[in-house]
């Protein structure tokens, strides 16, 4: 099985690579369109600011490639946000895979949200063997609004979509690679899809 982590200069790639390594999978880091197209599984990470991450994605022309992929794709954190229609952060146009928008948490709460929060209403093979209200590690200032493609939700300020799925595309706001055993289980489930 060929697992690729998209390496476009905007992600904590090392942690994901190590998390997969702990599952016995040696992932390839790549920003090459051909290589990515031929992978069995694609992980699309992202950390940092949305508009600059999108700019980097466009520089490597991956913004045109990702939406056409047919194998399972997992967007993590900013990766998931970039797969939505658009983000309030830097007025960024997204890849329009998930039909929802990304907006900033209100000033009623501390921003960014940093720490462990629960995920619930789990609805996807991605969460097989993961209990309702399991804790996941999250670090983010912007969130995806609830929508039909939501497969998990969390509460901070409001209820929002902490995971999304449309066909072969999956997105998680939390960091499975940093979420202890339950996070590892989610990665393992993704690899089995």
């Amino acid at each position, binding site marked *: 099985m060929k697992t690729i982590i998209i390496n476009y200069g905007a992600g904590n790639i090392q*942690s994901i690579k*190590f998390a997969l390594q*702990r599952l016995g999978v040696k992932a390839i880091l790549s920003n090459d369109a051909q290589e990515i197209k031929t992978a069995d599984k694609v992980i699309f990470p992202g*950390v940092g600011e949305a508009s600059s991450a999108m700019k980097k994605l466009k520089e490597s022309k991956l913004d045109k490639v990702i939406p056409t992929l047919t194998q399972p794709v997992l967007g993590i954190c900013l990766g998931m946000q970039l797969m939505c229609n658009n983000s309030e952060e830097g007025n960024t146009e997204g890849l329009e895979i998930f039909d929802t928008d990304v907006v900033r948490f209100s000033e009623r709460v501390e921003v960014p949200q940093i720490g462990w929060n629960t995920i619930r209403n789990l609805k996807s093979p991605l969460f097989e063997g993961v209990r309702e209200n399991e*804790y996941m590690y999250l*670090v983010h200032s912007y969130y995806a609004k609830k929508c039909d493609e939501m497969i998990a939700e969390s509460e901070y300020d409001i209820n929002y979509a902490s995971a999304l799925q449309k066909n072969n595309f999956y997105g998680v706001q939390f960091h499975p690679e940093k979420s*202890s055993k339950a996070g590892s289980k989610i990665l393992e489930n993704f690899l089995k899809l």
Partner: protein
Amino acid sequence: MLTKRIIPCLDIKNGRTVKGVNFVNLRDAGDPVELAKIYAEEGADELVFLDISATEERRKTLQKLVLDVAAHVDIPFTVGGGISSTEDVDRMLQAGADKVSINSAAVKRPELINELASKFGNQCIVVAIDAKQIEGKWNLHLVGGKVPTEIKLFDWAKEVEQRGAGEILFTSMDNDGTKDGFANEALTKLSEIVNIPIIASGGAGNMEHFKDTFIKGKADAALAASVFHFKEIGIPELKQNLKANGINVRL
């Protein structure tokens, strides 16, 4: 609901864990990666590695340690100590650190916070603030608390938030090493004046102190070292105790 975090801090010197009482008299408390794995297993929510070595090779040694930790530990961790440039931060994040903590470098050149936040995102920039009361006023101290400054704690906290810090790690030098509890009054004031998470540090001696800093001090996270390293407090027991006291923790 977002939970309160328990964060063991590992002071690192030349690749080994140490913990000073009031930042002096260092004692050896083991191998950092082994300790980190144990803490993750026991339910620590995050880890902080604070490098206090002053050698030429420190960068390389620390980078190697970060890689080692990232390979073996499945919870988030922060690296701090001597980080003073964009390149330093880049190196640590590339090696697998989730966040970096900056202290003196931010005081010397506050623009560094803006630069780091815009390049890496504010979520991975922790500003560590060491302060001590001088005639009833909280003043910033540098170099592990040894050098007093004229800068006032609350002004600085507000400034670092505006410049893009994602979190504040506040250590009270008056409480650190005393095991008499955290500086809850100052912590409460901090959480009132800024809208980013505050990590309380300095003074943990028993489980009650953690409960107090979450309730009275309104802290988002509590950091401690020796009580964990010397097994005076077990993390599973601590979290059970906090839960029994109505504090939302990850179990």
